[in-house]
Structures are given as structure tokens and as C-alpha cells.
């Protein structure tokens, strides 16, 4: 046991000596939370637009004023000919051009009906549709208000209540994802790299011939990363709470227990990767492509899974972070208890066992190396 | 011997913070000499060698290699030396021929010259049949011999060998030293660090470093005589122990 303690301390020292990596490990969640909290939003603000007004009447001026007055739009230039439209959109100076036809005023008078062209730069498809709907909303609002005095007709009010996130803040969405990503990064990526590194440098062999049991070696390698991951998870929760006012609606204990479970899942994945690869670069590539990318994209972190094509939805079923994110959203934001997430918890636990079992089998193969057979742990000559 | 010194070092100091890795080194190496640079691990051998090769700058002292100053003329020095490091220095994922071609090219040999050189080198090593094998598929002994040949592919006046025979079997070591003699015979100065005290006996002159200082310098025979022992190994143990006794 004493030997084992010494081994763990050695692993800790390894990590703490590398200040740069450590800094990044703790800087990463902070930077990401800031990014997602403040920068990555789909809200539109101050969209620059241009006006081409062939009609020049009170109505068109009112509409432009109204649009400019909203916080969503900012009038950039006034155009004087149709030819200019293409240029200023292409240059990217404006994202929207409002065009009033020459007969706008006369149509209004004669038929009580006229149309505005809302030209948007749809190379950013999402933004374009949001811009259009905002502009159209303002125009419709104007058209309704300028209509005859409010009719005493009956009214239907629809009152939406935004549950769990009243102000529709972006962080709510991103905290669970960031947590999943960071834990994946530390537990799976770093662990696999650090084990493979010992293999590459031949030090693994030294450990293997030592009286430490293989399980102890793996445990020793893994323990510091468990601690690091846990610290990171807690600091993300704390950051969310103190900086972004993100509540922990459910049981904090349950949340941390679930984090622990996910750390285990990620670690077992990391161990599996390390038994299957022999060079750091390969381990990194596998971790990046097989773990990080799907964690970001296929887990419902940024993009809702249900909107994806079928084949990606199937793929997402085998992504551990997907379940973790569901759990965190439930426990942390909706405040539900274990009764709502037991299924996901079981799946994660099952995955962990599966990965561990698989690595244990690979590990056996390695033990055979000592009896002369070739295996993944074969040491390269110095 | 002294009139044609190709390496001259006087009062070389190298400090890393408070630690002095090289403490007042003074020595000269003559043309065509095989100079053995001995010392325990961490005695400062590699530091000194890196300075001589222009890989790092001394803290103070005068150092001239092939007549050029290590502070200002490292480019000239690099053109006039060969170097084979402790770590393996050929590209494992290139073939034998490709490695020779690469280093020949880096030293600015013409295509014609590279072709001649590689043919000559391969035949001397009896490696013609392996010219298209990847380095990583060669046994260590072959690699080291090849690395040495590549280090002198541009016929430098001086070659630095940093523990060239580490981990190599005795037979290959013997062959390796034959190659060193051959090179010295052609007038190439050999500056070699080693752990193997039997190898020290092969050198023309040796210096023994202890704790950053040169504790003894001279021909192997002279050193053995002055310490009254029969092998360099014993000289080394006396020096290293003596130093320990002093510090304790």
C-alpha cells in the first residue's frame, strides 16, 4: 500500500510539473464558459441594413424609423439605385436591404395594401431567416397599429412561460456540454496519452516488472486524473453559479455522483484507447476524432439531436456524453431526481463496465508478451 | 601536437542559474587525434560538447573549434564538424540511402558527389543490399555505424561523438572503433564521450571530468602510470571517490 501511495504521488508530480498543461486544463473551462456565455449567441443585435426607397412617403419613412429604433437593426446607408444592392451585400457591409417600390404610396392609398421587399444575405441561412422574421414582425406591427383604431373584437392571449431558463440565456445550454467536454478531455484524452507515453518511453515495462500489480499501475495512473476531473467539474458548477447565476436546482450530491460516474466512463474509454494504441500521436488522433468531435457535435451539446438526420441520431446513441448531458440538464437545471435519470445512469454504468471489460481483455494479451508473444506493449528498441 | 590544435578551450564556464555545469575547462585537441572525454553522468560532458558544436553558448571563456570562435562563428564551425548524438539521429522512417542523401544535401554536396559518397559508404559498411530498407528495420549496431558514416559524409575536419556505442554489443563496438581509427587515419579529429572505460584505452588522449571540472588529462598510459594502477577504470574510480571524499 505504501508503494502504491508513492506511485500515485509520482503521477501527481508529473502533472503538476507541467505548468502549461495544468494552466490550460483550468483555463479551458473558464474560457469556454465565457465564450458560450457571452459570445456564441444566435440572438441578433444591431444588424446593419440599407434602404432603397423609391417612394419617399410618410409610410416608408415611418417604417424605416421604426426598424431603426429597434435594438436589432442599425441603418448603415441609404441607397439610390437597384444596382447598388448587389454590391453592398457582396461586400458584406449590410446584411439586409429594404426596398420600397415606386408605387408603394399609391398602392397604399388606392388598395390599402403594399409590399416591402426584405432582401437578406442568406449566405448565413439561420441569421437570414431570423433577420427576416424580426423585420417582418416590426413591419406587421406597424401595419396593424396604423390600421383603423383597435377593433373591439375578441382577444386570444397566448402566454408562454419559459421554464428552467426564464431569460433564455445561452449558458444554460452550454454548461452541461462544457462539463462533458472538459471531463472527456481530461479523463479520456489525457489519461490515454499519459499511459501511451510510458509505453513509448519504455518506462511502462519497468513498472510492469515491479511488484506493483497491473491493476495498481492503472489505478495509480488514473487517480490523479480523477481528482483533476472532479476539481474541474466542481469549478465549472461554481463558475456557472457565481458568474452566470446558474442554479443547481436538484441535489448537488446526486449531480456530483453523476459526474463521478461519467468520469469513470471517460477513464475507461481512455484506458481502452491506451491499450489499443502504441504512439502518442495515434492516441491523440483517436481521442480527437473519436471522442472530442462527437462530444461536441453528436451529444446535443450545441445542436439538438432530434433535428439531425437519422444516421447521425443512431450514431449519437452510442455517445456517452449524450447521456451525461441529459442527466446534467435534468438534475442541475430541471431539478429532477434520480427517478428521471435512472435509465441514463444505467446506460453510462453499463458502458463503463463494457469498456473496462474490453480493456481487461486487451491487457491479458499484453501479459502474454512477457511469455514471448508479440503484443501491443512490445517495446521499441531505444 | 600542440602546434596544430583544432579545438582549443581555455577557462570555459557554463552556468545554469546557480549550477555550474562546466567549471574552468582548459584543454586542446590536435589534428587527427582521438580525444576521449570521460566522466560520470551529469559531470558536464554533454554540456561541454554542445558548446563545442555550437548548440549552446558558454557563459565565459575562449573556445575555438577548427579555428573559429563559438560565440560569433557558429555557422563556420557547423560547416566543419560532424556530430553524432546520444540519441538516435537518423530518420527512422527514411531508408538508408535517403538519409545519406538528405544529410549530404544539407551539407551542400553536389548530386554527383552524393552518389559517389553513398556508394563508397555503403560498400565500406557492406550494406549495399540494405540501401532501400527503412532505418527502423535495421539492428541497432548497424544504425550506429551508419549514423557515424553519415556524420562524416561531408569529410569534416572534426567529428563529435556523444556516447556512440551505448547499448551496442561488444563485437559491433569493436567494428565501430575500427571505423573511428580509419577516420582518424584520414586526418579527422575525433572527439568522443563514452561510459566504457575499455574504450578509453583506445583513445590517444583522454580527459576525465568530475563535477564540472577536468580532474585529469593525458594519455591513457601516462594516467595509469601516475596513479599507479593498471586500468583507466581504476583511475576513474580513484578520481570519482576522491572527489566524493573531499565533498563529504
Amino acid at each position, binding site marked *: 500500500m505504501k508503494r502504491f501511495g508513492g506511485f500515485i504521488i509520482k503521477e501527481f508530480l508529473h502533472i503538476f510539473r*507541467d505548468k*502549461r498543461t495544468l494552466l490550460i486544463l483550468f*483555463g479551458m473551462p473558464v474560457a469556454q464558459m465565457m*465564450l458560450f456565455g*457571452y*459570445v*456564441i*449567441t*444566435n*440572438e441578433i*443585435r444591431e444588424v446593419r441594413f440599407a434602404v432603397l426607397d423609391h417612394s419617399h412617403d410618410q409610410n416608408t419613412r415611418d417604417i424605416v424609423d421604426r426598424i431603426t429604433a429597434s435594438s436589432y437593426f442599425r441603418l448603415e446607408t441609404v441607397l439610390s439605385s437597384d444596382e447598388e444592392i448587389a454590391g453592398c451585400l*457582396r461586400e458584406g457591409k449590410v446584411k439586409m436591404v429594404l426596398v420600397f417600390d415606386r408605387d408603394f404610396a399609391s398602392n*397604399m392609398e388606392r388598395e390599402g*395594401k*403594399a*409590399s*416591402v421587399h*426584405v*432582401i*437578406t444575405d*442568406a*449566405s448565413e441561412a*439561420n441569421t437570414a431567416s431570423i433577420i*427576416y422574421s424580426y423585420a*417582418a414582425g416590426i413591419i*406587421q406591427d406597424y401595419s396593424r397599429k*396604423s390600421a*383603423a383604431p383597435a377593433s373591439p*373584437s*375578441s382577444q*386570444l*392571449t397566448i*402566454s*408562454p412561460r*419559459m*421554464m*428552467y431558463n426564464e431569460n*433564455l*440565456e445561452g449558458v*444554460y*445550454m452550454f454548461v452541461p456540454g462544457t462539463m462533458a467536454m472538459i471531463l472527456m478531455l481530461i479523463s479520456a484524452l489525457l489519461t490515454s496519452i499519459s499511459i501511451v507515453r510510458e509505453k513509448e518511453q519504455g518506462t511502462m515495462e519497468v513498472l510492469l516488472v515491479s511488484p506493483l500489480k497491473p491493476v495498481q499501475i492503472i489505478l495509480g495512473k488514473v487517480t490523479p486524473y480523477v481528482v483533476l476531473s472532479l476539481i474541474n467539474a466542481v469549478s465549472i458548477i461554481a463558475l456557472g453559479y457565481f458568474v452566470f447565476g446558474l442554479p443547481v436546482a436538484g441535489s448537488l450530491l446526486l449531480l456530483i455522483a453523476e459526474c463521478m460516474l461519467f468520469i469513470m466512463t471517460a477513464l475507461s474509454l481512455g484506458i481502452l484507447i491506451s491499450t489499443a494504441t502504441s504512439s502518442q*500521436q495515434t492516441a*491523440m488522433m483517436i481521442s*480527437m476524432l473519436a471522442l472530442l468531435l462527437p462530444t461536441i457535435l*453528436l451529444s446535443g451539446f450545441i*445542436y439538438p439531436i*432530434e*433535428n*439531425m*438526420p437519422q444516421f447521425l441520431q443512431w450514431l449519437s446513441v452510442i455517445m456517452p456524453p449524450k447521456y451525461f448531458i441529459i442527466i446534467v440538464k*435534468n438534475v442541475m437545471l*430541471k431539478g429532477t431526481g434520480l427517478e428521471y435519470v435512472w435509465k441514463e445512469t444505467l446506460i453510462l454504468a453499463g458502458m463503463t463496465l463494457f469498456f473496462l471489460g474490453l480493456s481487461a481483455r486487451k491487457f491479458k494479451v499484453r501479459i502474454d508478451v512477457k511469455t514471448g508473444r508479440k503484443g501491443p506493449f512490445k517495446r521499441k528498441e531505444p | 601536437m600542440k602546434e596544430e590544435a583544432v579545438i582549443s578551450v581555455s577557462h570555459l564556464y557554463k552556468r545554469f542559474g546557480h549550477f555550474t555545469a562546466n567549471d574552468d575547462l582548459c584543454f586542446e585537441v590536435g589534428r587527427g587525434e582521438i580525444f576521449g572525454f570521460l566522466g560520470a553522468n551529469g559531470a558536464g560532458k554533454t554540456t561541454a560538447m554542445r558548446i563545442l558544436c*555550437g*548548440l549552446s553558448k558558454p557563459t565565459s571563456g575562449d573556445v575555438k573549434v577548427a579555428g573559429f570562435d563559438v560565440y560569433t562563428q557558429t555557422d563556420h564551425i*557547423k560547416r566543419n564538424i560532424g*556530430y553524432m548524438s546520444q540519441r538516435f*539521429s537518423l530518420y527512422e*522512417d527514411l531508408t538508408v540511402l535517403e538519409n545519406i542523401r538528405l544529410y549530404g544535401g*544539407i551539407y551542400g554536396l553536389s548530386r554527383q558527389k552524393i552518389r559517389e559518397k553513398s556508394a563508397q559508404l555503403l560498400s565500406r559498411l557492406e550494406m549495399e543490399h540494405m540501401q532501400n530498407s*527503412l532505418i527502423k528495420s535495421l539492428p541497432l549496431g548497424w544504425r550506429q555505424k551508419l549514423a557515424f558514416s553519415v556524420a562524416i559524409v561531408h569529410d569534416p575536419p572534426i567529428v563529435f561523438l556523444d556516447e556512440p556505442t551505448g547499448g551496442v554489443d561488444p563485437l559491433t563496438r569493436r567494428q565501430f572503433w575500427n571505423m573511428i581509427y580509419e577516420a582518424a587515419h584520414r586526418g579527422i579529429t575525433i572527439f568522443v564521450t563514452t561510459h566504457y572505460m575499455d574504450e578509453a584505452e583506445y583513445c590517444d588522449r583522454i580527459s576525465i571530468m568530475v563535477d564540472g571540472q577536468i580532474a585529469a588529462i593525458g594519455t591513457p598510459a601516462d594516467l595509469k602510470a601516475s596513479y599507479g594502477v593498471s586500468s583507466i577504470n581504476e583511475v576513474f574510480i580513484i578520481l570519482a571517490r576522491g572527489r566524493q571524499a573531499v565533498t563529504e
Partner: protein
Amino acid sequence: MRIIAHLIRKEFLQIRRNRTFLPMIFLMPVVQMLILAYAATLEMKNINLCFSDQDLSPASRGIQAAFRGSPFFNVMGNTFDPAEAESCLKDGSADIVIVIPKGFEKDLEKERKAGVQLLVNAINGSKASIGSAYTQQIITGWYRTYQQAAGGSIHGARAPLIQAIPAFWFNPELNYQVFMVPGILVILVTMIGMMLSALNIVREKEMGTLEQINVTPIKKHQFIIGKLLPFWIIALFELGFGLVVGKLLFDIPMQGSLWLLFGVAGIYLLAVQGAGLLISNTARTQQQAMFVMFFFNIIFIMMSGLFTPVDSMPVWAQYFNYINPISYFMTVIRMILLKGSGFTDIQIPFFSLMALALIMMSLSIWRYRKTV
């Protein structure tokens, strides 16, 4: 010049022998595009609805019927019990719960006033706001027909109606993939040009071959060109390959001049390769280099407007993008491919990139030390 040629040849030989490298170059664009372009969609469909109909009247049934025809909604269930409806929200089986209170129809007829409540799972803010807007639209639509059926109670003179007619330029079908694919190309080019070339240098450091190179009379610039040029070429090749894949899989438009695009890409690569070189100078192990690059790349890519428009970022983030090469290239590649912008349109980002490339390159060359 001959020395550089030797170095470049060596680099290509090594790349050719690397068994993971080639498949990566060809597989990565395909996989990334398939996953990213399809996964990264903000299109709203499959909004799961649950009703809590406490009125059980023709009117409330009418509302429900209105949703059944919509392609955006899946009606998951209907319960009388509001608590049960809310638990649908909790266990995630519903995104929106529509609560129709008791006496809804009566109120509409008698009081000419009634209310419907929506409970929206707002953890994903944007999805929630779009979803609730769709829902409101459909209910309002239902209400209009309901009113007409109830006796055409549209009062007074016909109100003047101003219609906003949309015209979505450059991408009339609002195809999100057309927006994403150029962004993915930027990431690919960056990964190959910057990450791989930097890792390659650190790898030589780890292996010890860099030391061997350092004792040769090779000049700084020769070594740097020999290291960066091969990856510069491969990255540009990757851009071309990615464009072909994008054309075949997603039929992305190529409105502008491809020459211009490759020109900008070449300059962009210099800037990021300079940054990569800077990192590789300070890193001791590949792991470190990888981590540092990964960290900065995530930040720079997120800020660059890959997913969300730069215009909606806070002002400080927009200032930050002045020094973010990825952001310039992200903008330019979309402008050229989708809008057919010419050189005059992209002048500002073009010259900014050039300045960045110049700064990064000189910084990294200045910092590069042959001695250790």
C-alpha cells in the same frame, strides 16, 4: 535552394510513409462534412408537444388539430392533469406543453377574451424562442379561422396591409449546409497547415533528429521553409479536395474566383503556420504542443463565426477578431464561394490577413532558435 529542396523531399517521403497520415487527409474532409454539416443544423423540426386540455371543448380540440398537420410538431400526448403534463417536460418527452384552461371556449364566446398557456423547456434558449414563436403562430392562425367561422367578426374597413416579401439572396433555399461547408474547410486547412506542421517539428525535437539538424550549417530560413512549405502545399491540396467533396456531397455554390480563394488561403496559411511555429518553439513535447494549439484553436474558431455570426457578438469579441486570422478567412471563404465577391469586396480582410501573416511569420522566425 538545393538544401531546401532536399528538406522538402525528405518531408514528403516521411509523409508518404506515415500510415495514418494519408487516410487522414482523405477521410477527414468527408467525415467532418458528413457529421458537421448534417449535425450542425438549427432548423427547427420535430418539436415535441404535449397538451394539457382541461376544457375538452370543440375549440380546444380545434387547436390540437391545427398542430397535427404541421411538419414542425410532433404531438406526443394529451392529458387532463396539468401535473402530468409538466412531468413530460421534466423527463424530456415534450419540449412544449400547451395548457388550455377549463372554460376556454366559454370565455372566448362570452367574454371575448381567453388565454392559453405555453410551458416551454427553455434550457436551449434559441430552440425555445423559435419553438414558442411557431406555436403562437399556429394558435393565432387557428384563432383567425375560428373567428371567421364564428361569424366573420372582422370589423371595420379593411385595414391597410403592408406585406414584407422576403428575398433570400445567395442562398434562396436557406440551406444551412451551404453556410457550414466553407466553415469546415477553414477548420480542415487550419488543422493540416498549422497543427500538423507544428506537431511535426516538436516530434523531431522529441526524437532527437532536430538536434542533428541543428549542428549542420543549415540556415534558419532554410529549415523553416523546409518544414512549412510541404504542409502549406498539402493544406492547399486539402482545400481543393474539400471543395470537390463539398461540391459532390452538398452541391455548394462556387460563385467567385477559385484563384482568389486559393490566394487568400495561401496567405492565411502563412499566418497560422507562423503561430504554429511559435508554439512548437516553446513546447517540449507533442502533448504540450497539442494542448496549447487545441486550446487556442477552440477559442479562435468559436470566435471566428463558424456557427454564429460575428455581428451578434459583443463588441469586445468583435475587436478580438481583428487579430483572429481564422475569422478573416472564415468571412472571405464564404464571401467568395457563396456571394461571388471579388477582390475589391474582400480588400480589407485580405490586407489584414497579409499583415497578420507578416507579423506572425517574422515573430516566429525571430523567436526561432537553433541553439537550445
